[in-house]
């Protein structure tokens, strides 16, 4: 009969519907706002300590990094100025005969400079054994072999650095060269080779040593003969 206009218009935007059932005061208080002094102080000091520790840690990290970089420069320099000067003191009456072959082997892989000097204690400078090589720049070489003829040592003595102890004897020199050429790589398969090589070197030592008795020399020769068999070279190559 009558249509009446609605009294209201429900628009969701008009009506504020409550989303909270009960409103209660917050349990978690913010310090600044509440003003409780003791707790504030503890927390500030804690914060201070934390930031100090972090700063100290940063400092240390910086220092370690700096030192690491310093260390790397010295090792770098070590690698760049890098040629090794191997000084061998030998007596002309007992020249290290294997040296010529060791140098030949080294030359297969590295640039080698050979220098020969006569010490003031000897007059015979053995110029026929190895010849002195001239150079205008030692830096061009990887290895420099300096052979000094002296009156003193019976066995050749090799010096690498003044700080390291000298290496005595020709066989030990051969071991050193072997190490430089990479023969002593500690893989299990090469253990047999390495051990046999050592036995050979020791036998050579006995033969070379002036103090060995005839019997000792005979025994050493027999050992070598056994290893060599009918091959041209020890170790077959």
């Amino acid at each position, binding site marked *: 009969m009558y249509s009446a206009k609605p009294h209201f218009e429900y628009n969701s935007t008009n009506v504020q519907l409550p989303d909270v059932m009960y409103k209660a005061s917050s349990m978690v208080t913010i310090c600044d706002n509440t003003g409780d002094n003791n707790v504030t102080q503890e927390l500030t000091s804690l914060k201070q300590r934390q930031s100090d520790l972090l700063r100290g840690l940063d400092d240390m990290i910086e220092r370690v990094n700096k030192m690491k970089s310093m260390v790397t420069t010295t090792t770098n320099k*070590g690698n760049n100025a890098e040629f090794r000067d191997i000084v061998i003191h030998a007596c002309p009456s007992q020249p290290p005969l294997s040296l010529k072959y060791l140098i030949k082997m080294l030359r297969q892989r590295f640039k080698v400079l050979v220098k020969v*000097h006569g*010490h*003031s204690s000897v007059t015979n*400078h053995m110029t026929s054994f190895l010849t002195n090589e001239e150079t*205008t720049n*030692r830096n061009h070489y990887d290895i420099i072999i300096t052979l000094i003829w002296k009156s003193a040592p019976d066995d050749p003595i090799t010096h690498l*650095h003044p*700080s390291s102890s000298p290496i005595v004897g020709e066989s030990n020199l051969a071991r050193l060269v072997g190490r430089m050429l990479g023969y002593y790589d500690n893989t299990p398969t090469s253990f047999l080779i390495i051990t046999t090589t050592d036995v050979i070197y020791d036998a050579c030592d006995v033969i070379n040593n002036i103090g060995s008795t005839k019997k000792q020399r005979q025994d050493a020769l027999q050992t070598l003969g056994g290893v060599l068999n009918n091959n041209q070279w020890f170790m077959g190559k």
Partner: protein
Amino acid sequence: MADVENVPLGDDGKPMSKKALKKQQKDAEKAAKKAQRQQEQADAQQKADADDVSKDLYGDMVMIQSSEKPDRCLQPIGDIGPNLAEKNIWVRGRLHTSRGTGKQCFTVLRHQQSTIQALIFVGEKISKQMVKFCANISKESIVDVYGVVKKVEQKVESCTQDDVEIHIGKIFVVSKAAPQLPLLIEDASRPELEDGKNEEGGRPRVNLDTRLDNRILDLRTTTKQAIFRLEAGVCKLFRDTLTAKGFCEIHTPKIISAASEGGANVFTVSYFKTNAFLAQSPQLYKQMAIAADFEKVFTVGAVFRAEDSNTHRHLTEFVGLDLEMAFQYHYHEVLQVIGDMFISIFKGLRESYQKEITTVARQYPAEPFKFLEPTLILQYPEAVKMLNDAGVEMQDNEDLSTPSEKLLGRLVRQKYDTDYYILDKYPLEVRPFYTMPDPDNPKWSNSYDMFMRGEEILSGAQRIHDPEFLSERAKAHGIDLKTIEAYIDSFKYGCPPHAGGGIGMERVVMLYLGLHNIRSSSLFPRDPKRLTP
């Protein structure tokens, strides 16, 4: 007053007073005593003379005024040995020591590097007075001795001629020395003690200042005679080796108008109305000689450095042995020549001066000098690495400090067993402006230093011979070109590439013999505190 009649009369005829009388008496007594004493002395003298059988065999010689030429041959003490046994010889030497009892007197006679024992004892022909005279001759007097050479069974340890002695027959004093000596030659010859101690077991040493103040006496010791003869040997070998290689000796001026090397350490002298300087080094003139086509020159002369360094190795005036050489293509040609020259010097000293080396070693023992032939030449980066490995923190563009040099010397000695080596390719920034840079890497230079027993003895380089390049380098060093105009002009009219170096003679001798102070190898040393003798 006493008896008037007995009073004696004085000079003026009047009687004398009591005082005058007493005085007269006293005078008479004195005269009588004197006369008596003289008589006694004369008696004694007569008695003595009467007993002196050796009256003509000793005494003070009349001063030698070249009044005669006796037919006498004086044997040098160094040549007296068992070969002259039982022979009568005349000897002239200094009285080194003497000790006498009443009946005998032992003396040691010294001549340069040699000493010999001489003794005199009372006998048929030798009187007590003569022995007494001998014992009373003051030390260091020069004496002429006539005697017979005798072999000894037991070696005379304290003398160089240890297998013989002289039995004195006649002794005459040629030149007397004042009795109080400021230092005893015996004390000055004793081996030095550690810690600079001055006395040990009642045997004193003479310290350096006393020696230098009384240099004439100090130089008489056998050790000093040997040192300076060896020094002469160094100069002789330097000259002979270089002359044999075609070098020409030149003499450069020492009074110059401008300070040559960098550094302000020059002495000024007044030169008429202006000032002049004493040359710090013959560098400029050596190079001018090369530009004047002499090609290979060396010079031996004084070098003056006004450095206030009171160290064991610096003098204000020393003798410089300098050389300069034009080369063909590479400065290593010169380096080789210098290295070979040093080796010739060391070998020559070892061959011909062994007696001197042994004499010096008695008072200043040191290890014999070792070297390698050909000379060891290391490069600067190698040396820096050796020092770094040994714990010295340094970069490879820094100069070597003196302690580093000494340490490097020890490291090289340990590894290569040599006291002498050359260090090549110094960094350019620590060398003077006229040093030629390395062509491949301008960080390095064509320069070198040489070391003996860890101390530097020579600094040298390839010099820049192109005037434009030289001006550039001088500007890069901040040097005002006007002050070195004359130097640059020397190269204006074409100059061959050249290199060279200079050594200090005293330093080489000091280091060769292992002495510890350069004043021991300088005849009359000059340092900031000493101008005399």
